[in-house]
């Protein structure tokens, strides 16, 4: 569990973070979203103390990060930067093993661990481990960046706008990888992005940051349906128009409870109507399962019609 208690960060009497309180639960994929300059990256960096708060406390599992040896603290936290930030003088394997080297792992153990993770992010270890970063595409480099962050099996991984520099296709693939890894590894992930679309797609919970303050913390549906203030409402306005989530469809009263004979395509509440339409179209099926609910193509059409008429089913 990560707790930020009354955290302030001031630069030249300008607050980058102002009296901020936040709790992130174990195993959560928590997304900090906000426009650039909002303070979301500053917030992220107070967790591994790359930025030291002017006042307030940051605690991981009840322990104040200020009281822990910095290097030991950071070796136990994965970190993914914007551009992959691979060391250009090291091979992919050396890059991915940086934390393991510093933790004193044996060569065999390091190699096995890195090779396994490489396969998990969709890079063939035999083809990629001996390459240099200059021989990788942006998406490949960022996958290696993720492997590097996960190599030491950290309980916590911080990601600072990791996909903002990628093309839409790579971004989508990597988002998929993050969701898969998060499901498989039982890791807490704190993810920073300025792209609300990305936030909605990935997050268990979202924290909306603006002007150094948390405007709202909640699930994607929560934030879309009940924005806490005008800023949050405006920030997600476009999304409400063009990108409705399946969670919202269910919240609006569509769908029926899942029964025993309902098996087949499963989607998450964070996925959009467009994705549902694409899935149905590709598969030729007529329904999907979201959690314990079933949505049919008829539900999709009815929900979209209800948006047009401005009301819901009830």
């Amino acid at each position, binding site marked *: 569990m990560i707790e930020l208690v009354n955290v302030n960060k001031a630069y030249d009497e300008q607050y980058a973070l102002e009296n901020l309180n936040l709790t992130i639960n174990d195993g959560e994929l928590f997304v900090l979203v906000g426009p650039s300059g909002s303070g979301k990256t500053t917030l992220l960096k107070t967790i*591994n103390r*790359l930025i030291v708060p002017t006042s307030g406390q940051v605690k991981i599992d009840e322990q104040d990060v200020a009281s822990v040896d*910095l*290097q*030991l*603290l*950071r*070796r*136990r*936290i994965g*970190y993914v*930067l*914007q*551009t992959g*930030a691979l*060391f*250009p*003088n*090291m091979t992919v394997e050396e890059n991915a093993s*940086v*934390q393991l*080297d*510093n933790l004193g792992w044996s060569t065999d153990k390091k190699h096995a661990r890195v090779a396994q993770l490489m396969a998990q992010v969709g890079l063939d270890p035999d083809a990629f481990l001996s390459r240099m970063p200059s021989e990788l595409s942006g998406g490949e480099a960022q996958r290696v960046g993720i492997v*590097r962050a996960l190599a030491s099996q950290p309980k916590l991984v*911080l990601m600072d706008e990791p996909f903002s520099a990628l093309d839409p296709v790579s971004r989508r693939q990597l988002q998929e990888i993050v969701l898969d890894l998060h499901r498989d590894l039982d890791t807490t992930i704190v993810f920073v992005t300025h792209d609300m679309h990305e936030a909605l797609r990935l997050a268990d919970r979202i924290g909306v940051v603006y002007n150094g303050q948390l405007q709202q913390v909640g699930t994607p549906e929560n934030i879309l349906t009940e924005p806490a203030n005008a800023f949050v409402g405006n920030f997600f306005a476009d999304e409400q128009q063009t990108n409705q989530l399946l969670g919202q469809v269910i919240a609006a009263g569509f769908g029926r409870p899942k029964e025993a004979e309902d098996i087949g395509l499963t989607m998450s509440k964070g996925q959009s109507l467009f994705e549902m339409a694409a899935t149905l179209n590709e598969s030729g099926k007529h329904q999907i399962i979201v959690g314990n609910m079933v949505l049919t193509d008829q539900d999709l059409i009815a929900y979209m019609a209800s948006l047009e008429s401005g009301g819901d089913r009830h």
Partner: protein
Amino acid sequence: MTVINAIVAYVQKNGSDLLTALWQHITISLIAMVITILIAVPLAIVLINHRRVGEFILQVAGVIQTIPSLAVLGILIPFVGIGTVPAIIALVLYAIMPVFQNTYAGLTNIDPVLLEAADALGVTPRFKLFRVELPLAMPMILSGIRIATVLVIGTATLAALIGGGGLGTYILLGIQTNNNAALLVGAILSAILALLANLLIKVLAKVPLKRLGIGVLVLAVLGVGGSVGHALFTKPTETITIAGKLGGEPEILINMYKDLIEQDNSNVKVILKPNFGGTSFLFKGLQSDKINVYPEFTGTVMQSLVKTNKGVNKNPKIAYQDAKQALKKQFNLTYLKPMAYQNDYSVTVRASTAKKYHLKTVSDLAAISDQFTGAFDPDFYQQADGYPGLKKTYGLHLKAAKTMEPSLRYEALANGRVDVTDGYTTDPQIKADHLVALKDDKSFFPSYQGAPLMKTSFAKQHPGIVKSLSKLSGKISVSDMQNMNYQVTVKHRKAAVVAREYLKAHGYLK
């Protein structure tokens, strides 16, 4: 073609000496570069976290860079004396700037994202420095080292000026003795050396750091082992150092000293440092025990070295006594008895002119001097003991007299463009160009007699050496010396060979 032939001939004749000089040059440059790297790289690493001090040091290093290397050598002499050490210090001062600057720039220009990544992953400071920062700055550091190495190899030629040896010796020798082959050999070799070093570092830059480290270690072990082994297997003998001024004549003399001393004293090994430098370098070298003996002229002693209000006495015997006593009293030095020849100023005419007008002395010339034109060294033309004094003492009145670059005036005389010039009595051109030095029948010119100079303490401890050196006192005539200078300077034969031939021919050497 003749130039190339001359160079080839010169290299063939001086092969082993050239190799020694080349090796010396490499050693000096290498030591200077190792020290430079050991200073500049760690300094940059430390100062990277103290930017303000770093920028300041950068400025200081830049200022040092602008001081001419010759001036740096001059400034250092009072502090560290002469020889290899000050040469290396000067080279290090020169090389620090590019290495420090590039290392500093290389370290400051690392992408901050990469440094953040290293910090965020919790690497140790050691890991960050050796696996991230230094490797990323390495291309810049190596290019700094490359620039500095080329600079050092070029500047190391100046080491010869203060007795540091190296390829500069040949450049200097070439300038002093008008031997273009020697000059070119020195210059070309140092240029090739710089190019090769440049290339080598470029190749080494591609070798991984780890393997490079192992290579350096192996070389260091071999080097230390080799020198220790060498020291163990060579017998302890006393080594003394004899140096000579620039030019062929001092080199011939010190080679004679060496042969005589080593013949008589089997436990003494003589190291020669020919073309060691100008008078003040040698004199300081003698006082600071960098060298033990060098040949010096009585006239120079009286005019440049000792404090005296006496001029140089016209009587050679008195002139020697004056010099000897002043050296003993003021510097506690021992000045052995001089050789027979005097390397004096002279008035020189063509042999054909002398024959035609029956000229033997300067007085003979003065009597009919209004028929002749003259060209003189600018100093000689102005000094009281030069042309103005000649006019006064002998009533010499040339039809026309002008100044001319010293190296050109013999040529002008031989070509008939002028009829009279100044010169030194032992100049080889007198023989080569069929000239005649007229006798100074009124003893106008001060006397320059050569003799070995050493510390009195050294002379007392080494009576055997004094005895060997004294064998030359009162020996070697002007024409002998002229002939030997001719062999070395004009015919480009080796001074050691010419010296040995003379000693054997006159029965000093078995």
